[in-house]
């Protein structure tokens, strides 16, 4: 139990209001954060600053000025994806944030869109080195909970479906040498579960965890590495091994009767990159293959 309550100033830097209300709710008797912190309305009286939102052209200066006025030790808590990385508004023309870009050193990041009061409670408790009582019923996670997304390393084929469907760009992939890394950035994620919905391999799952606070931005990256395949003809990397395996598996599932006898030829054509596949002789071989398949079906 903290001896003295931490005095907090809440600065809404162009948030949608969701985080602000969750903070207000975290202070309710139910979540027991109120015994450690109290809200104050003058920055000069506060030791800690809670920032929500990605700071636009009007609030950026205000937030900076408030930070200057804080009392030492100047704890800064960024609540929500917008405060961490501007979230879904990252490309907005009016956005000047996030906080660390404005020269405000951040102590704790609480991820979520918006973070749940439970996450806020845990983060505050970790700051003050106190234990949270997790025995209450609201600490059990309901079915269908949308927490931090995680990859199943075995299943992911690095096809990039999640990258294309993600509305914020929290999912990204990068090809380096012969390895493709698929990354999820919890600071940018809005927990909409589009990736979980779209993933053909059921590799991405939103976890059921309340712990969503991080001390540094690099902790918020979670990735999976998948080896890339080289074209049998020109040697250029063009897809991952697992992706091709998945294609063939699905082909056999859907039209096994037709393609099973032709499998060897299909695999050979698939081992070429798209450019080599469109060369004259390969195009001809491909067409012949399709005609054969059409006849046998």
């Amino acid at each position, binding site marked *: 139990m903290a001896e003295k309550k931490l005095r907090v*100033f809440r*600065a*809404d*830097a*162009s*948030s*949608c*209001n*969701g*985080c*602000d*209300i*969750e903070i*207000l*709710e975290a202070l*309710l*008797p*139910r979540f027991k954060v109120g015994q450690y912190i109290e809200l104050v*309305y*003058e920055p000069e009286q506060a030791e800690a600053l809670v920032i929500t*939102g*990605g700071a*636009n*052209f*009007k*609030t950026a200066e*205000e937030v900076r000025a*408030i930070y200057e006025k804080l009392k030492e030790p100047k704890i800064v808590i960024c609540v929500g994806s917008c405060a961490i990385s501007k*979230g*879904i*508004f990252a*490309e*907005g*023309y*009016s*956005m000047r944030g996030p906080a660390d870009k404005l020269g405000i050193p951040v102590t704790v990041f609480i991820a979520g*869109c*918006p973070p*749940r009061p439970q996450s806020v409670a845990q983060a505050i408790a970790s700051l003050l080195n106190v234990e949270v009582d997790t025995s209450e019923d*609201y600490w059990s996670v*309901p*079915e*269908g*909970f*949308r927490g931090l997304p995680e990859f199943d390393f075995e299943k992911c084929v690095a096809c990039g479906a999640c990258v294309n*469907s993600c*509305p*914020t760009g929290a999912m990204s992939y990068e090809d380096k040498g012969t390895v493709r890394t698929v990354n999820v950035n919890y600071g940018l994620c*809005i*927990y*909409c*579960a*589009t990736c979980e*919905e779209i993933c053909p391999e059921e590799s991405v799952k*939103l976890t059921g965890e309340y712990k969503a606070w991080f001390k540094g931005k690099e902790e918020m990256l979670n990735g999976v590495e998948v080896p890339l395949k080289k074209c049998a003809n020109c040697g250029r990397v063009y897809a991952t091994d697992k992706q091709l395996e998945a294609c063939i598996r699905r082909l056999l599932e859907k039209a096994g009767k037709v393609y099973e006898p032709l499998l060897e030829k299909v695999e050979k054509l698939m081992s070429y990159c798209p450019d080599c596949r469109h060369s004259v002789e390969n195009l001809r071989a491909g067409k012949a293959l399709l005609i054969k398949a059409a006849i046998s079906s």
Partner: protein
Amino acid sequence: MSGRKEIVIGPYHEYLLEPERIKLVVEDGIVKDVDISLGYCHRGIEKLMTTRTYKQAVFLSERICGICSHAHTTAYCTTAEAVLEIDTPERGLYIRTIVAEIERLHSHFLWLALLAHGVGEHEAFAYIMTEREKVMDLLELISGNRVHYAVNTVGGVRRDITPKIAEKIMSTMNEIKPLTQYCIDMLDENGPVGKKVAGIGVMSYDEAIKLGAVGPTLRGSGVKSDVRADDPYAAYGELSFEVVVEKDGDVRARSMVRARENMESISMIEQAVDALPSGPIIAEPGEPTIGEYVGRGEAPRGELVYYIRANGTNMPERVKVRTPTYANVFTYTKTLLEARLEHVRPILESIDPCYACTDRLVIIDAKKGEKRILSISDLPFGTV
């Protein structure tokens, strides 16, 4: 002029949940002029929406506001479904309606709690907020998140209501009926909050129409107008409900509209869960058309309008949103004038302002007063 001074509230202030700057010109404790400067929540959402596909833009429209997010996606999806010529399945529409009404409950309860807090009834605030958690838990069960439900999508909804969830909805509705009655009693003319806010910030029937008010702000002045009844969308056409109207036009009337609407919402949710049709919850999108489309819906704060100009691609060419607070904020020019300084807070709160919604442009509305900025601690008003 003696005793004339200018008071600036905000952008960060105890009274304001969200940042905005309100300038009051005050003479002997009476407000003579108001000037509102918004823009602290401007995020360029309309521009961003034109860089996303129709399905991805749902999440942007959701994040316009953290309280009425489902109302935004409902209005957006209704419009986008017209663009993509989708016939949304019945079950999807019913689930959309159920979530919309649960959201209205939580929004109205939050606002009623904040009003109680604003007039110094801290016990009522704590009670309403604590009981309101039941509604939040219900939303988390249905959608997986307490705010930003991500239930709506273009073509229907993403999450089904299973029999187990339906049962939980029904039992929660029964549990919060006493809370709704508590709010109505609290706002009675002799109730603890009602007697403090009666007769202040009065706006007549004609003025409300002239100033273009919408939603509970308009209905509090006796105007019977509700998109759910006038132009039914989603499944509202198949539910029976009363459009709540109060005649007085003061802060109490506007609050009472919300408190009584909660009763209607509970009844609507029960009707919709009972009549939940079977079938699919989502339909496949068709080809994008070319043209201009307008859709509207009733958000907890009033009429919400979406305009989409489609150019036949998978992204909208222009999206325009008219949010209810933007329409209601002009009523300050009437309700705040000649108000006593200690009544400013309940009047500011009485339209249930949501600046996150509103801040897509900046309005400045008043003559210039004398320039003298006071600090927050100089403000003479504490409790009403």
